[in-house]
């Protein structure tokens, strides 16, 4: 089967996307950990039986609750230093006083990454560690089916009231007797979300008809997203929270006189906040949250204030279950916090610890076949035995020092056992579906091999690749391999103990995948055989043959390989932007050298010719040949050594010489706009300076200038109608930003009325759609009527400018310069570098790809989930609508690479007159250059899956890479569609 290289590359990438999807599904398995909660649970364990006959313990039921009413105040993004640090002292006086002198146990609870709200709520309420895939589900939270505290409380007949983030309502539908959910998607609103919670408080606190009250305040998180942890808005918000806590605490205290049991107030945060105000990663500021237990049951603190103890966030579920007299949820990996139960008798304390240990060892039994050898389990058994001895002594009425000391010893043993048990359970969370991962890896690897093998042919001037399909499909090897793989599939699926995704899909699809794998293998083998048959063929191609490699080719190859290899180190992933900045800088310098050579050596040729030495001519031709300069063009240049046009040439020359330096300076400026990564992320950058509230005027000026520049740079190739649409659209962008309060109009002094800017944003959307529609119409026209090339290039440019307008709308205003510099660099490169130097399509594609990657990071993205700007998904939407929100967020994140890819298409389609196969080559190279790092990374991640940083560094990067493959596949499809009509025209 003969395929054009564009079609071939797009097909390959689609198959590769399938493989990546399968790998991702295996790498992030949905947590299937314990039996569903509906199953009857075993009776709660009794106290360990004392050895010897005669005495038996009478404590067989779950212990009675320790607290009557419990109020949980969850403040989103409450960082530990907001309570324990200087901010706490300043803005939360009541809480600080409670922590220092009152009846309060204070801890620092450590959250596990991903530090995003929904997994954290799950962790708090189930005590388990949610899988990484929960991040993706964060925006679309399904019902929590695991055993959890809320469900236990509800079945025990407790009445629960909830006010706050509606994630809870989605997680626990029908669990609350009364609730009011607030949506967390309007990040710019930080007062109303909290007022909606607080307004119920007075009436609820007066009433008596509830047992558990949960309040989830979102305002602080929104402030963090908007302006960061050091903004002046944080102080008043903390003060507001402090007042609320004071109100709740006094009300709880006043009620206590009537009842026998004390009440409990819990203050906690779900996650912290990084220095930039976002969260999701694993830096210390993001994972450390305060956890306060306030109740009259605790002793008043005396003595100097200690640094709060570090506990796990999952410990809350177990502690609270004991406090409420409920069974501990099955999947909980948390330990009881001892300080909370310290006031109880020794027998009760040991009983609680035994319950917790029993639950943990049960969980271990369900998850580990060799649980008996686990040190935690062994410790627990020993502790249980000495617990029995203690009970025997106790029941015998021994009340001496011996009993106390033995009790303390048992307590210590239990604590040790619990610690080891929960740490070995936490390790269990990372269970990989190796079979699906292997299948995915094999597909991805085979596609890459096929792409590499077909490179010489696909990049030849015909840009066609003969896929050897029929001989391998009828070969014996293919059928044998199919059979063998199916057999392997059956064996693996019948013998696997844990659930495996690839086994659970229908067998028809599985067989289809197996056939795909074997077909790919056979195709690769026969392509390889063909290459061996006529080994001369690759040598003919200048791009592959060794002799004519320029420095640029070496750099491109070394950069690609070096980047792929660097993905094995966690620091290089965290600081990947540095790699790309470094590479494009070097690329610019290499281009500079190339340009110098071009202009200066051509001049030398001229000089030589003017002396008219005939024998030198061969010499010059030799050098020109070496420089890959087209001989006819050189000849023509040599031919007319006249002074006419010398002036024009001079200015062109100086522009050409200056352009790499201009690009370098642009890149350096962009680099200081957004600091990303991990190590240097806290450094002050220009973006934060701009977004701080006192520099609003500067930001407005910059945004206005940027929008004007965008218009100037984009309009030059648009038709008149889209010029006007573009201008109006950009005006709309500014008025949208003014409406939501990011920038100000000069005549508008104080902006008090902040709206959501729905009308303004939709006004811009109309123009975006209009421009893209005109562009598509032109493209279709050029395809159907096969009009001239000009219509098509205008159409493509219009599609491009529509995307630029969309990006201008959803980019944060301080990022608008990124867009300007993107357009500027593209223009300079097209005009001053690529035109005179005449690179081939492959080189230009790779340069575009590199710049696209660099712009991905210039925008402020990084390889952690925290830097995804979710607010882009809500531009112009009244409430959360899934499809547009995902599309907009994806576009905002990948705007840099996408804009460079579309620009590449524009450029290559204007190059068609010079090289008819340009688009095909471009598409093929784009597919290849994208699939290399993905494949390498997938193999590396498989090897590093037990690395310490797998969840904090490698997994987010894997998600980014997966997303990148899907987007590249879409881009390649668009390329192919453009190539299609091109080739049709040629055939006509």
């Amino acid at each position, binding site marked *: 089967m003969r395929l054009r290289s564009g079609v071939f590359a797009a097909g390959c990438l689609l198959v590769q996307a399938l493989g990546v999807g399968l790998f991702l599904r295996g790498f992030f398995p949905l947590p299937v950990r314990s039996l569903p909660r509906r199953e009857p649970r075993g009776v709660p364990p009794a106290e360990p039986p004392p050895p010897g006959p005669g005495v038996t313990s009478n404590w067989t039921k779950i212990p009675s609750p320790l607290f009557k009413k419990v109020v949980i105040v969850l403040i989103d993004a409450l960082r530990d230093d907001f309570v324990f640090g200087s901010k706490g002292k300043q803005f939360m006086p009541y809480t600080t006083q409670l922590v220092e002198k009152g009846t309060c146990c204070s801890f620092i609870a450590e959250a596990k990454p991903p530090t995003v709200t929904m997994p954290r709520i799950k962790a708090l309420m189930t005590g388990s560690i949610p899988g990484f895939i929960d991040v993706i589900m964060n925006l679309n939270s399904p019902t929590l089916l695991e055993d959890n505290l809320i469900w236990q409380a509800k079945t025990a007949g407790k009445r629960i009231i909830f006010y706050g983030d509606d994630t809870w309502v989605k997680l626990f539908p029908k669990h609350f007797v009364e609730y009011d959910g607030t949506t967390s998607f309007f990040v710019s609103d930080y007062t109303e979300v909290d007022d909606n919670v607080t307004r119920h408080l007075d009436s609820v606190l007066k009433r008596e008809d509830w047992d558990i009250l949960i309040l989830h305040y979102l305002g602080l998180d929104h402030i963090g997203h908007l302006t960061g942890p050091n903004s002046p808005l944080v102080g008043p918000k903390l003060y507001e929270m402090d007042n609320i806590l004071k109100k709740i605490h006094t009300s709880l205290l006043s009620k206590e006189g009537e009842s026998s049991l004390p009440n409990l107030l819990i203050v906690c945060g779900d996650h912290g906040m990084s220095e930039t105000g976002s969260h999701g990663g694993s830096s210390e500021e993001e994972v450390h949250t305060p956890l306060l237990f306030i109740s009259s049951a605790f002793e008043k603190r005396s003595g100097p204030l200690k640094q709060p103890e570090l506990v796990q966030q999952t410990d809350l579920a177990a502690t609270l279950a004991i406090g409420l007299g409920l069974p501990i949820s099955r999947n909980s990996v948390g330990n009881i916090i001892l300080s909370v139960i310290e006031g109880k008798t020794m027998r009760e304390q040991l009983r609680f610890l035994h319950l917790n240990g029993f639950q943990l060892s049960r969980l271990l039994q369900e998850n580990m076949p060799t649980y008996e050898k686990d040190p935690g389990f062994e410790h627990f058994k020993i502790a249980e035995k000495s617990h029995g001895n203690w009970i025997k002594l106790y029941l015998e009425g021994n009340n001496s020092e011996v009993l106390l000391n033995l009790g303390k010893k048992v307590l210590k043993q239990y604590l040790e056992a619990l610690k080891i048990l929960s740490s070995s359970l936490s390790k269990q969370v990372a269970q990989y579906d190796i079979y699906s991962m292997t299948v995915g890896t094999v597909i991805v690897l085979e596609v890459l091999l096929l792409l590499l093998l077909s490179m010489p042919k696909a990049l030849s001037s015909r840009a066609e690749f003969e896929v050897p399909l029929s001989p391998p499909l009828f070969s014996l090897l293919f059928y044998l391999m199919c059979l063998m793989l199916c057999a392997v599939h059956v064996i693996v699926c019948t013998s696997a103990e844990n659930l495996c995704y690839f086994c659970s899909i229908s067998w028809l699809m599985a067989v289809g995948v197996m056939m795909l794998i074997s077909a790919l293998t056979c195709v690769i083998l026969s392509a390889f055989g063909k290459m061996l048959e006529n080994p001369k063929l690759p040598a003919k191609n200048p791009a592959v043959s060794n002799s004519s490699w320029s420095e640029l080719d070496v750099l491109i190859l070394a950069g690609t390989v070096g980047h792929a290899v660097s993905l094995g180190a966690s*620091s290089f992933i965290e600081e990947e932007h540095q790699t790309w900045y470094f590479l494009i800088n070097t690329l610019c310098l290499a281009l500079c050298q190339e340009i110098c050579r071009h202009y200066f050596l051509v001049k030398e040729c001229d000089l030589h010719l003017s002396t008219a030495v005939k024998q030198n001519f061969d010499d010059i031709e030799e050098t020109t040949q070496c420089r890959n300069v087209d001989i006819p063009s050189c000849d023509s240049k040599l031919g007319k050594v006249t002074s006419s046009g010398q002036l024009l040439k001079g200015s062109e020359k100086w522009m050409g010489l200056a352009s790499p330096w201009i690009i370098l300076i642009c890149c350096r400026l962009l680099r200081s706009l957004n600091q990303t990564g991990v190590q240097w992320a806290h450094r002050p950058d220009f973006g934060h300076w701009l977004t701080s509230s006192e520099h609003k005027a500067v930001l407005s000026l910059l945004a206005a200038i940027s929008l004007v520049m965008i218009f100037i740079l984009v309009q030059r190739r648009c038709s008149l109608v889209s010029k006007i649409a573009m201008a109006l659209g950009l005006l709309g962008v500014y008025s949208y930003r003014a409406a939501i309060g990011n920038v100000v109009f000069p005549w508008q002094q104080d902006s008090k009325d902040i709206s959501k800017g729905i009308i303004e944003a939709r006004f811009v959307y109309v123009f975006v759609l209009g421009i893209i529609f005109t562009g598509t119409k032109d493209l279709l026209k050029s395809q159907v009527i096969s009009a001239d090339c000009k219509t098509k290039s205008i159409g493509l440019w219009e599609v491009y400018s529509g995307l630029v307008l969309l990006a201008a709308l959803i980019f944060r205003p301080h990022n608008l310069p990124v867009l300007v510099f993107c357009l500027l660099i593209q223009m300079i490169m097209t005009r001053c570098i690529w035109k005179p130097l005449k690179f081939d399509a492959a080189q230009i594609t790779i340069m575009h790809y590199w710049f696209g990657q660099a712009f991905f990071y210039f925008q402020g993205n990084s390889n952690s989930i925290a830097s995804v700007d979710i607010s882009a998904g809500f531009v112009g939407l009244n409430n959360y609508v899934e499809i547009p929100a995902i599309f907009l967020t994806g576009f905002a994140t990948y705007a840099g690479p996408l804009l460079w890819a579309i620009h590449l298409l524009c450029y290559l389609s204007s190059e068609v007159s010079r090289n008819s196969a340009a688009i095909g080559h471009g598409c093929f190279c784009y597919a290849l250059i994208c699939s290399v790092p993905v494949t390498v990374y997938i193999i590396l991640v498989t090897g590093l899956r037990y690395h310490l940083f797998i969840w904090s560094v490698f997994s987010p990067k894997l998600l980014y890479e997966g997303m990148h493959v899907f987007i590249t596949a879409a881009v390649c499809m668009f390329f192919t569609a453009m190539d299609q009509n091109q080739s049709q025209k040629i055939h006509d």
Partner: protein
Amino acid sequence: MKDTEIKRLLSAHIVCVFSIILTTVVPPLFLENFSVLGTHLIWLCICSICVTTVNIILYIILKPNPSSKRISFAHKVTKFLKCCVFFFISCILFHGIIVLYGAPLIESVLETFLFAVLLSTFTTLHCLCMLGPNIQAWIRVFSKNGAMSIWDNSLQITTMCSIVGAWLGAFPIPLDWDRPWQIWPISCSLGATFGYVAGLIIAPLWIYWNRKQLTYKSR
């Protein structure tokens, strides 16, 4: 004739390599608390000065590109001044390029500048000694197939090696190993130095290896 010239080249390069080794060994005898990593800036100064003097002395002794006509004293002075200006310009240029590569603009200016000086010593100074302040000659040497003597070839190789060494030296900076040599600009300057030394050693060997293929056009 060629073999003797290669021998001269080799001996000159060995002297250069030894001078660099001495800069790490000798100063601790005179200066307290001196170490290449600890007091890196002092080492940068010492190394630059040392390499400069050795290069100039070697140039005076060996005279790789002997010119036929006598040059007046005034001409020599202007040439020397020109060389100084060229050297200074190249320092500024290197500094600019390093900043464009992402070095901090305002903080640690001294470190960056001394690194630029070191790079200039390894590359520009060498060229100035060999070719003089003559841009045409520079363009000739650094374009493909432009070498006219083994000295030009060795110039190409050492310059290339020092710059590539400095380039490679930037790679360990993002790693989170917290080693003393990861501090700016130590890894880069060490990379440049190793590259330069490697270039000095490779150049004579490479020329010796390829002496049959190397044919030089007369001027």
